[in-house]
Structures are given as C-alpha cells and as structure tokens.
C-alpha cells in the first residue's frame, strides 16, 4: 500500500521566553492510505503536537511533511486552508460544534465544502442520529455531539481524518459507539484515520500503534488485526 503521508525528521520547538521547549524531536513516520494509525502516549508526550503539525494546524520548526509527495510544511496560509478543505477532516475532544445550528445544519457546514452533492440525512443516519436531526447541541449528550462531529467531518469525504482524543470526554459505552462509527467510516469510505489517545485500549482498533514520549516516537507496532471497538479493554 502506498504512503499517503510521510513525516520526515520533524522538529517542533515552542519558545517560552528565553527557554525553548522541544515538543517534537526528530519524528519520522509514514501513514498508508486507508490505514487507521493510533498515536498513543501520556500527557505531554507530544502526540497532540504531532497531530497538529501533520494536519497543518501548527507549523513545524524543522523537517518535512509530505502528502503524496508534496511538502505541506511550506504551504502558506491560504494554500493550507485549501488543502484542508479538499483533503482533511477533524474530530476534537471538545467536539467544537456550532451551538447556534442544529444537527442537520452542523453537518451541512461540513458538506458545503465538498464539491459533490451530499445526502446529509444519509450521513446523519450513518452515525445513528436520525431521530435527532432537528435538535440543538445543548439537547444532545456528549456521545451524540461527538457523532455529529464525525458526521460533519465525513460530510465532505476527506481522504484523511484527524481525531484528537475523540472519546476523551465520554464514558466507555458511548466511547465505543463513537469508535465504531469511525471504524465503519474507514471501512466503507476508505478514509485514512489518525487517532490520538492516551487510552491504550483504543490502540487495538487500528492497523498500527505509534507510542510517543517526550516528543519522540518510542515504538511503532503493527497490529495483527483490528479489534472490534466493542470488545476493546477500556482505560
């Protein structure tokens, strides 16, 4: 399988006054198309920073980030925006939904970016929220909100989805439902998934697990097979 993303010798330094903090220290990784890669690590390991730089939400200090051979680390703001529009989807721990819009409209926000016409109701149905179509965010539980977020991200059919602690604010049952949605999206649509988490159980749903600590990749492990999200140990 070809590499969709290649991360080559990436450094990220945060300057705090006169002191520099090395958040990423010579990180290299490649991600194949259609893969689910889980980045695992404790708090402060640099996993979220890695996610942010790979997805273009933050700039690197040194190195390359190649998407199908093109170095996106050099992209200017408007080009990066266009790139994200065409290729990337995001799911956040805090959902980041628009509370003044209902479920349908939140998904529409994502769908409006795609060129092809999208059946929004079908996407909402995919994430099991058909009954909640007209509801506002304050009327939904955490898990339901996260599924809205997934639907919004999928609505524009991205080639890569970045998920930053997608179950961080959820209980086990709800978290597993969300993970199930992600896996189904990957299997049905072929969307490459990069999931950041501190929960080792979640690592089992992916194709590969990348362990990070202190800004470095400690280990990259291939999973023999993906585990069903319902069966994974939690925590």
């Amino acid at each position, binding site marked *: 399988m070809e590499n969709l993303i290649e991360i080559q010798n990436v450094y990220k330094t945060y300057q705090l006054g006169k002191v520099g903090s090395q958040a990423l220290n010579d990180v290299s990784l490649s991600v194949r198309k259609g893969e689910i890669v889980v980045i695992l690590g404790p708090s402060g390991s640099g996993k*979220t920073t890695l996610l*942010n730089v790979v997805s273009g*939400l*933050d*700039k690197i200090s040194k190195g390359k980030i190649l998407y199908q051979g093109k170095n996106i680390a050099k992209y200017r*703001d*408007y080009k990066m*925006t*266009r*790139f*994200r*529009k*065409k290729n*990337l989807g*995001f799911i*956040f721990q*805090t959902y*980041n939904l*628009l*509370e*003044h*819009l*209902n479920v349908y*409209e939140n998904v*529409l*926000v*994502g769908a*409006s*970016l795609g060129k092809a016409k999208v059946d929004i109701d079908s996407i909402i149905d995919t994430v099991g929220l058909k009954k909640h179509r007209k509801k*506002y*965010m*304050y009327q939904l539980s*955490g898990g339901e*909100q996260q599924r809205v977020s997934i639907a919004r991200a999928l609505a*524009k059919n991205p080639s890569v989805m970045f998920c930053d602690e997608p179950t961080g*604010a959820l209980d086990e049952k709800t978290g597993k439902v969300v993970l199930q949605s992600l896996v189904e999206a990957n299997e049905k649509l072929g969307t490459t998934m990069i999931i950041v988490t501190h929960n080792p159980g979640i690592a089992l749903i992916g194709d590969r697990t990348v362990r990070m600590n202190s800004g470095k990749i400690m280990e990259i492990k291939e999973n023999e097979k993906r585990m069903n999200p319902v069966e994974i140990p939690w925590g």
Partner: protein
Amino acid sequence: MKLLLLNAIKGLRKKKIQMAGIIFMVMLSMAVYVGMNSAIDRLETRYYSYLEEQNVEDLSIGVAVDYSKDVSLSDLDYFLEHQFQNVTEEEHALLEQYRLYLENPVYDVKMLYTIQSLFEKYEADIDLKTRILDSLKEEYQFVYEFERSKTVSDDKKLIKFLPYEENNQINQLYLVEGAFPKGENEIAILSGYAKKNHLKIGDTYTVLGENYTIVGFAYAPDYIYPLISFSMPIFDETNNNIAIVSETAYQKVVGVKDNSIALDYQFPTNRKFEITVSVGTEETENNSPFADDPVMRILDEDKVVMDINTITRLGRISALQMEFASNRLFAECFLYLLLTISVLIIVIITKKRIDDERLQIGVLKSLGYNRFSIAASYLVYPIVGSLVGGILGYIIGIIAHYPIANVLLSFYTVPLENYQLDLSYLSKAIFTPMISLSLLSYLIALFMLRKKPLALLKEGSNLKVNLFSRIVNKINSLFPFHYRFKYSLAFRSLGKLLIVTITSFCTGLLIVLVLIGSNLFNHMIEESFAGIDYRYLVMLGQFDYKDANEYEEADYVLSVSVPLKEIKDKNGNIKPIEKEDEEIQFALTGLDTTAQYVRILDKEEHNLIDRLDDDEAIIVNENAKELYNLEVGDQLHFVYETIDMTYTVVGFSSEFMGRSGYINREAMSTDLGLGNNAYTTIYSNQEKYESYKNLDAEEATKIAYILNMNDMRENIEKQMDRFNGSIYIVIAFASIMVLVIISVIANIVVEENKKTISLLKVMGYKNRKISSMVLNIYTPFIIVAYLLSIPAMIGILKAIVNAIVGDIEITIPITISPIMAGIGLVGLLVAYYIAIGLSKRVLNKVPLAVALKRE
C-alpha cells in the same frame, strides 16, 4: 473570590483594546466636561458681579412721542429758537405746516412721521422725551440716562465711539488697564483689538485721519458682546473696536449716531437680564402681559416702548448667558453619551468573563459564595476605567479650560475671574463614571449570575439556544444555508446583538453630529444670503416715495413692524395666538413684484415674488409658519395704530429668524395710510452707497444706516472660519471616538467568534467566506442603527437649539443631505471593516490549534 479578582485583573491585560476604549471615552468626556465648566465658571462668576458693579441697565427703552398731542405751540416756538435754528428752507416750511396742524389737528400720518424725523435729526426730541420720563420716574422708581454713540467706518474697520462721562451712573465703563481719556486726543480702546493690531498704551491710534494717544484699555459693560454694526454681526476682534474718548473729541467724531435710553430701577430687580418677556399667569384687569412683572410694567405706558434695538442691546449684554447655557448643555450631553457607550462595552466584557468563568463561578456558588460578592469582583473594569480615565480627563480638562476661556473671551469683553482649583470637579470626574459604570455593570453581573450552581457546572450549560433564536432559525430555514448560518449566529445572543446595535446607534449619532455640524454654519450662511442680490441695504430714517418703475438701479422696500392680532384658517375659524405672542412684532416688508435685487425663496428655492401680484397676499417666513402653525390660505389680521390690515398666506419663505412677511408694496403703503408707494429701505448695488462721503447732503440726511451685505457675508464667513476651526477639532475628536468605538465593536465581534472563525478555517473555509458568514453578521444591524441615528440626532440637535435659544426666534435649518448621510454610512462601514481586518490579523497570529482550545 481572590481567584475571580485575580482573573479579572489578568483579564484587563487581555482586553487591552476594550479597556483602552473605556478609558479613552471616560477621559474625553471628563476632559470636555471639566474644561467647559471650568472655563464657564470663571466667566460666569465674574459676569454677574461685573453687571452689578458696573450698574448695567435693567432695561433699554424708547419713548414714543406723540407728535399729534405731546408738542404744544410754545414747545414749537422754543425749539425754533434753539434746536431748529439751522434748518433748511424746506424743513422750515414743514415746521410751519406742523404749526398749522397743532392749531387745527387733522390726522396726517405722513406729515407726522416726517416731523418725527426732523425732531430726531436736530435732537429736539430729547427734551420731549426727558419730560415724559421725568413724569414717570417717581411712579416706576427708576433713573435713566441717555446713551450716545457714533459708529465710524475706516477702511475695513468699524469703531464705536463712546463719550467718557465721569458721572455716569448707568452702564459705567470698566477700566482694564491704564486710564480713561481726559484730553481731546486721548483714547481708551478694547484690549483684544489692541493685541490683534499690535497696539499698546502710549501708541498713536489713527481713525479717519485723526490721531489719538492710547491711554488705557477699557470695556463698555453694555457691549459685552460688542455688536457694533449689523454689517458685521459676528464680532471680529481684529476689525471691530470700542473707542472711549472725551466729550470734546466725541463731538468732533463724524459717524452714524445711535442714541438710546438706559433705565435703572431703584428697587432690587433680582433679574439676570433675560431677554424673554414675562407674562402674567392670570387674567388681570388690563390684560397686559407685563402686569405682574414690576420691571417690564413700565412698558404698559403707551409712551414707553421697547426700544427697537432692545433685543440687540440686551442681546449684547446677555448673549454670554447663552454661551454658558449652551456650553454646559453640550458638556452634559457629551458626558452622558460617552458614559452610555462605556457602559455598553463594560457589559460586554463582564458578560464574556462570566461566560468564560462559569465553571469557577459554579464551584464558588456551590461552596456557598453568594452572587453579590462574586459580582463585586467584576467591578474592577469600571473602577479601573473610571479612575484612570477620570484622573486623566480632569488633568486634561484643567489644561484645556485656558484655551476654551480665551476663545470665549475673543468674542466677549468681560473681565475674567482668576482660576481657582475646584476639587469638586475632580471628584465628579472620578465618581460620576465610577458610580454610573459600576452600578450598572454590578446589576448586570448580578443578573447574569442568577443561575443555580448545578446549571453553571453542567457541561454545555452555556450552549442553550433561547426561544427567540429558535423562532428566528425556523424563519431562517426558508433561506439558503449561507444566510441561515449568518443570522442564526447573529440572533444567537440577543443581548450581544442589542449592545452592538445600540453602540452602533451611538456611533451613528456622533457621525451625524459631525456631518451636520461641519456644514451647519455654511448652510445657514447660504440660506441667509440665498435671495439677496443687492450689495447695499439703505435704511431711511423716514418714509419716502418712489414708484416701482421710477428707477432701475434699486429696489424700494417698505418695512414696518406691527403686532399680529388674529389668524383665521381657510374656513374662517380662528386659530389661537398665545398671549405672549400678541405683543411681539411681525416685520412686514412691502416689495414690488418687479424687484430685481431680492428674491423670496422657498425651501425648494423657487422665487415666490410673483405671488405678490395679489394685493391681499402675504408670504411669511418658515419661523412664523412653525410658531403659528400656518398653512396656505390662512388669513393674518394686523393692527397698526388704528389701521386694520388683513392678508392671505400664499407661501413660505426660507428664512429662519424672527417673524416676517412679504406684501405687495403699493398695497401695503395704501393700507397703512401712507399714500402711494412709500418706502423705508433701498436695496441697491450702486457704488455711491459704499460711503456717506459719496452721497449728496439731502440724501445723506435721510439715511439712518447703510448695511453692506458683502461685508456682512465676509464678516460672517471669516468668523465662521473660527467656528469651523473649533468644529474641525470636534470633528477630529468625534472621529477618534468613532474609530475607538468601532475598534471595540470589531474586536468584540472577532473575539466572541474566535472559536467559530478558527473552526471554519480548520475545516477549510476561505477567509472571505468566513468574513461573510461570521464577521459581517452585524452589518445590516449597523446600517439600520446608523439610519435610525440620523433622525434621532436631528431631533436632539433641534431640541438642544430650542432649549438654548429659548425665546429668541430662530429656526436653525438642521438638515443632512442624502449624499452626506451616505458618506457617513460608507465611512462607518469602511472603518468597521478595517477594524475587523486588524482584529483578525491579531487572531491570525495565534495557531489554529491554540485558538480551538477551550479557554
């Protein structure tokens, strides 16, 4: 609690722009308030004591000598031996005719008016007036003095000469520096004029070739506003002067005489020299409007009239009061406008902080802290804003009051009180904003903190969409997604929307104020001179006669002031006239329809003069129209002496001062019993009227005064430049304020939607699209608020002007053209979008990942 307080203090640093906006507005409002009031205090304190010390007149009167009854044959003989020694043959013949009249009276208006002019020309009327006044002074308890002056025109300079009379009791001259003149060639002048013309005590001052030595600087207390000539109605320090000379020197001065009678009551009048006429509140036996007013009661005497220049004279004395009133009013309005805007901004900051800290607040409440103490921690914003802004504003105001006082003194001749530090202004500068801003923001914080702890602690408790928003969203669902997104976001927080709209409205008020103010005086000048095509207005001291077509080089005009007695509408129903209006004179002007130097223009600039073909037609001015609520077709009934005159309204002229009406001259002359084609005024462009020297003796003796309209316009425009200078300063300040307010609004809009903006950017929305969907959501509301501010500001200005001018009859045309309004709107929106762009640039510097994090 400490935590919240610390957070609030930290928040000050994050809200730099907003806090700077509050501090700036408090500072500016206080600077204007303290500066204006301090300057006015210095003038006002001294002004009233000055009036008392110099024994300024209580009233200026004229005496109406009835030449049909008040002159006996023996009086005439006496005058023939004394005052009338050097009359011309023609004048002598007239006096003989008058003798015949006295022996066998047959009322002849024309002859009596001519006799009056003759008596006044040779000052034979003084004795008659003295006799009348002496017969009244015991009953009305007054003393009086005849006031004399001569106006001299030397090149572009106008000088009012006054004789120095040491024993003068009323309107005593005030010595500023040096000494009063004693010798024939000594003179005392205005200190401001001396400064502008680089003159000092000891220098030679030349007027019309006559050399004087300046011995002192002095003021005349009945010339506090030194209106010397209507040709130069706005005091020009450089070209207008009051010159005090000895009696001998005064007799030699050749100039236009202006005599009047100053009256001083021997009982305390306790008046502040108002120019309004007080009116009795109950019906009295004689129904006089002056019956209850001991000061004005003397006007009940049919011999005593308000001097036709009384408004001018009292205006000269009391005009400064209008400055006090108007400047204080302006300072108060300005203060409250800016404080209102500051309150709105503080409300936004407080709300944002409470929203952001709701979890902490929820914890505090669940621990047992009440919302009163929690709300108190948010007082740091108004307290800091008021303290810093108030102190700075006070200091700036104290410094600024010096130039403000000097500007006022460039128009008025009154001594200035020494500056005394008034700490009450400091406490007002700090505590007024502190109390008003703190109280309001405290109450609002209390309201916002009303939720129960659990509700605050619940995740997403701030995400609720209120009922109104849901209703709006339902309506929105009919529209394309782009609009739905925008307007559901706009209506998401009604409070925020209201604040942005109100703040925009206040900003609009400032912009409209600037636009109207920048053009107001120019507009007034244009309107005033719009129908005038003559250079010289020549006012005669008596009636003369000329047929309309006799000369082509001038227009002949008949001017008479008469009281309006009755108004009837088209159907013959009587329209009521207010009691106080009954005695106020209506200025009637008789014009020929062939007039070539004057046009009677209406608001649309149509010339209405042809309507005077009808002998019964009258065209009244806009001011009279508003005062009497007149319509075309109404009938106006005047009574002049014993003569009734009725005219029908056919149109309205665009003139805003006084109450005036235009009538066909021939008809008016006949109606008044003056015979055919009488006139009192000439409108002409003939060069001979440039100076009295160019006129033949006969014509010169007929003339009371000549107004040079070009000089008048030049004087007004030149002085307006000074006003315009002040206006430009106000415009600059207002523009800065507008920019500050808009920056604050823009900053708030960007900050409030930071997460939404960042999220859309992350998702891949372009900047332009994001601006359209998020940042421009308030644009329609800003436009509507601005449009509403236009009639609001026009209404406010009209109310302020009416409050200031009171009974002075003036309708100032406060308008704004659609183009100017459009310019204001464009300016507002451009400033708004620039401010949005700048705020966004700050946001763009924050990495998206950071921007999306929960605060």
